[in-house]
C-alpha cells in the first residue's frame, strides 16, 4: 500500500488549481490512514499554502508525499514559489500578522496544525515551505 502513495506534484497558476490540490490531498491522507477530522485539518493547512502561492506569487508548486521516521509514517507537504518572498519572516510567523488582505493568520496556523514546519524565504527569489504531520 505504501508503494502506491507516490509523491504527487501540482503546478499552480490559477485559483482553480487549488481544487485539485485539496481533493487529491484529502484522498491521499485517507489512503495514508488519517481520520476524517485530521484529513480536513491537514487539507486545510495545505490549502492555506497553495492559496498563498496563488495569491502572492501568482504561480508555484505543491508536492505531497510520505516520509518515515522510527517506524512512523508521516505526511509531508512541500510548497515552493519563485515569487516576491516574505520581507520579514519573523513578523509573518507572528500571530495576527497580515501582509495585506485576508486574516493574516495563514502561516502560523499551518505551523500549529502540522507537527514539523520549516520555511525559507528570500526577498525577490521566492519561498519554500516544508511541513510534516505524523500519523499517530
Amino acid at each position, binding site marked *: 500500500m505504501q508503494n502506491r502513495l507516490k509523491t504527487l506534484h501540482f503546478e499552480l497558476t490559477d485559483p482553480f488549481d*487549488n*481544487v485539485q490540490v485539496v481533493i487529491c490531498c484529502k484522498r491521499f491522507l485517507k489512503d495514508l490512514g488519517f481520520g476524517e477530522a485530521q484529513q*480536513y485539518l491537514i487539507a*486545510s493547512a495545505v490549502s492555506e499554502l497553495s492559496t498563498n502561492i496563488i495569491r502572492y506569487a501568482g504561480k508555484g508548486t505543491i508536492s505531497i508525499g510520505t516520509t518515515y521516521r522510527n517506524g512512523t509514517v508521516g505526511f509531508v507537504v512541500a510548497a515552493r514559489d519563485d515569487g516576491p518572498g516574505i520581507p520579514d519572516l519573523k513578523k509573518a510567523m507572528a500571530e495576527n500578522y497580515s501582509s495585506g488582505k485576508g*486574516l493574516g493568520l495563514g502561516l502560523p*496556523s499551518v505551523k500549529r496544525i502540522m507537527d514539523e514546519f520549516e520555511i525559507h524565504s528570500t526577498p525577490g527569489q521566492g519561498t519554500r515551505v516544508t511541513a510534516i504531520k505524523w500519523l499517530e
Partner: protein
Amino acid sequence: MTNYIRIIDTDLAVHVLEHLPTPVMAVNREMELVFLNEAGLKHIGRSWEEVKGKPCKDILQSRHCGTSECKMRQVMDGGQVATVRNEMKINGRTVPVEYTAAALKDQDGTIVGGVEYIIDITERVRQEKKLQEQSKTIREISTPAIKLWDRMVILPVVGVVDSQRAQQMMSAMLQKIMATAAKVIILDIQGVAAMDTAVANHLIKIAKATKLMGCRCIISGITPAVAETLVQLGIELTDIDTNSTLQDSLFDAFSLLDLTVTPKGSKQ
C-alpha cells in the same frame, strides 16, 4: 566538454529534416533564411527559391516576428533554448503555434545562426479553452442560492472555495436576498472540502454582507472537524449564528420568521 563523435550521413540527415512533418527553419546571424523544410514551405505556400535568403520575419509573419519577443533573436544573443507560444498565418488563417528555438554554433562554439521548429497547437488550445469553459460552468452551477421558504434562502456550499467562486456566491446570494426580500439565509458549509483562512474570510464577508442586506445569516454544517480547524486557524465567528446540522439551522430560521414546525394532528 563532451564531444559527440558520430559519423553522419549528411544526405540522410537532410532527407530526415526535409520530411519531418512539422516546419523546421534555420537562419544566419542576419536572420535570413538558410533552411526551411518541406512542411515549412507547404505552410507558407511558397517555394524554396522564392524565400531563400529572405529575412525570416517577412516570410513567417508571426506575432513575435521583428519584436523583442522573438526567441530566435534571444537564443542568438546567448539566451537559453526556449519553447514559447506564438501565432502565425498559415494559408491565410491565424493559427496558434508553439516553437522551440536554439542557437546554431560552429566548431569553435561561435553562434552562427539559429534553428527552430514549429508545432501547430490548434487542437491543444481548443482543448484548453474547452476545459476553461467547463470549469467556469462547474463554478456557476455549483453556487445556487435557493429560496427554501417565504423569506428564507439557502446557499449550499460544496467543494473548494476560491476567491472567484466566493465572489459568485456573494453576488448570487445578494441578488437572491434582494429578489425574495429574504429575512434569513442559511449558509450550509458541510460539503466544503477544506477551511483555510481565505475560505473563512470569504464566509465572514458573506455573513457581513447578509447583515447589511437586512437579513440574518446562519452558518450550518460546522462539523467537529470544521470547528477544530477554525480553532486551529484562530478564527472567531463572532456575531455569526452557527449550527452543527442543517436541521438545527432550519429550526432557528423558522423561529426567526416566527414560524414553528409541529407534527400533523398535534395540539398547538
